[in-house]
């Protein structure tokens, strides 16, 4: 009898402790950046279980870390781009972006040749069936992965930061949705989930990264991550692969034999809004 009483007490104490820990841990969630590797694993297991429940589909969430000796950079050939917007749509599929038709991480702007790169006269709503139009050229704009990012500086809760390999990421579980980073971004590269993302299970790309393309909740900010789920696994971003004219180049800035280094040395490179000193890792050049 005494033993039974003891076990019951122990059982109650244990359940109480578990409940208390559970309650506390939901209230004491930390930024993904601050958790230990083991905790991150368990957080990821929770995320995967959550996605399984929500979408009825396996979503694998990677926590691949930055590769040593790698600093990513991107270069886009303005003389080749024809404005077909295939990058925009490939990006949407790869990155589990809401299909509501309003949210794209890549915006392609049609500009007039006689005006040059001039945002005041740019048109993002041209008809992609009729490109390239005479007298026009096309400037795709996505996150410029600035070396001096104004967006991470303004975040009141440090929910966004620059990774050692140069990718500016968002912690979707920590972002409070104040949108100050969107006001601070000079390139319109940050996007907000104004509503629950529209994403059918069959549309989901199950290969994701915890700081990248894993499905997001409503009310948080998201952005291009150079396809962190691909590039940290040694692959090219989806937009590079899909570009039909080979206008998109991607590589390791620290590797002297990389294509990106070749472009910087042999082509004339242009930086969007250079005067703002954001120091983008995304360059534009004229290949021909």
């Amino acid at each position, binding site marked *: 009898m005494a033993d039974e009483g003891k076990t019951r007490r122990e059982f109650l104490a244990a359940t109480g402790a578990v409940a208390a820990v559970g309650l506390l841990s939901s209230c004491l969630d930390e930024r993904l950046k601050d958790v230990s590797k083991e905790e991150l694993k368990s957080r990821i297991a929770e995320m995967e279980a959550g996605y399984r429940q929500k979408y009825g589909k396996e979503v694998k969430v990677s926590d691949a870390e930055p590769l040593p000796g790698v600093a990513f950079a991107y270069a886009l050939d303005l003389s080749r781009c024809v404005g077909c917007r295939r990058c925009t749509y490939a990006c949407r599929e790869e990155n589990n972006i809401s299909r509501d038709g*309003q949210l794209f991480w890549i915006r392609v702007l049609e500009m007039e040749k006689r005006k040059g790169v001039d945002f005041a*006269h740019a048109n993002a709503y041209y008809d992609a069936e009729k490109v390239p139009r005479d007298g026009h050229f096309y400037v795709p704009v996505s996150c410029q992965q600035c070396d001096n990012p104004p967006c991470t500086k303004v975040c009141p809760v440090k929910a966004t930061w620059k990774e050692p390999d140069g990718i500016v990421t968002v912690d979707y579980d920590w972002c409070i*949705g104040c949108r100050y980073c969107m006001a601070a971004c000079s390139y319109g590269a940050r996007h907000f989930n104004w509503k629950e993302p529209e994403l059918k299970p069959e549309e989901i790309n199950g290969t994701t990264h915890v700081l990248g393309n894993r499905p997001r909740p409503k*009310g948080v900010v998201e952005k291009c991550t150079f396809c962190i789920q691909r590039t940290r696994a040694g692959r090219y971003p989806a937009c590079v692969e899909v570009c039909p004219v080979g206008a998109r180049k991607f590589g390791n800035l620290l590797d002297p034999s990389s294509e990106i280094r070749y472009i910087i040395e042999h082509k004339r490179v242009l930086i969007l809004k250079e005067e703002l000193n954001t120091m983008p890792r995304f360059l534009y050049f004229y290949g021909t």
Partner: protein
Amino acid sequence: MNVASLFWQFVVGSVRQVLRGNALYWTWVLFLLALIGVGVVAYIHQVQEGLTVTAMRDQVSWGFYIGNFTFLVGVAAAAVILVIPAYVYKWGPIREIAIFGELLAVSAIIMCLLFVFVDIGRPDRFWHLLPPLGVLNFPQSLLAWDVLVLNIYFVLNFVVATILVYCGFVNKRYPKKLVVPLIILSIPMAVSIHTVTAFLYNGLGARPYWNASILAPQFLASAFCSGPAILLIVLQLVRRFTSFEIKNEAIWKIAELMAYAMFFNLFLHGAEIFKEVYSDTEHLLYTRYLYLGIGEMHAVVPYAWTAVCLNITAFLLFVVPATRRNPITLNIGCLAIYAGVYIEKGMGLIIPGLTPDALGEVYEYHPSLNELAVSAGVFAVGFLVFTLMLKVAVPIALGKLRWSGASNEEIPH
């Protein structure tokens, strides 16, 4: 009787006072409660559906909520324009009414914090801002600074107002050594809430319309107009509906100070417009959107010109002694300033800051019905708080509501 139990008496007395009132009082309170109800329903809808129920989008990512927030930071300065002449220059007529400025500041800050709260996409994560549970990006993020200074200013005004009203309740002289330094401190704090809020926008290189150093001085100048404008109307209402005596000199003096502030505000605006128009760089785009529109897009143009006309009218009415002393023109001036600064510091600041967007797109923003309903609810909360505080503070100041054990002697100031 010790202070704690005396204070308890004060709390009980205040609650009783708030629950007593005539039909007019209850109609007003019920009206505000109804508006709050509307706001709560609209807010629940917003939480369920997301901020998609607002008219904000990626292009214009801040709108009516943040505009109201910015305007109300200005209103919170009302306290200071009264405190400076009352306590620094010891100008008697204003001293008795400084308490109203402090109560208005408290209500305005409550509305400010609520407007920020209803604007965020994840209100369930609000605690992420609160260390040690959360992480406040201080001193890097100006929003972190704003959270700090607004809360300090709120506590400061709340404490001072409570002490003053409490001392009136027990009919004792307020502890000068405690109150005066706090009041003096509220002056730099009022300046800092404006400066920090201006810097919030000012520091963004991505937004040329905001990235002008004239912004912070302009915030201060317009704040010294909008807060007192509301106060002047409140003071006249208090005078009308209670036996509280407010001297005409006090009202005229405030109106005169407002005229100077409005002149400075208009001057700063003119300086900025001159720079933009004469240099005619690509940055002119935002000013042009505000005053002329771009192509077919001119949603904000009528508002911009209305604000200019109202501000100039108010300046003229307040700078001429005869019109600021005439109760009719005085009140027209107050309403003109209130409306003028409301447009200028609200939508007139936020919308051209974000339009055209960073990639040159013009998205015309009009607040949605849901946004208006939530905002009405927030304003109603502020007005209700202000009403209830006045309900307690006015009779205490008149000596009509007092602790039963207090002496009935008049205490000279």
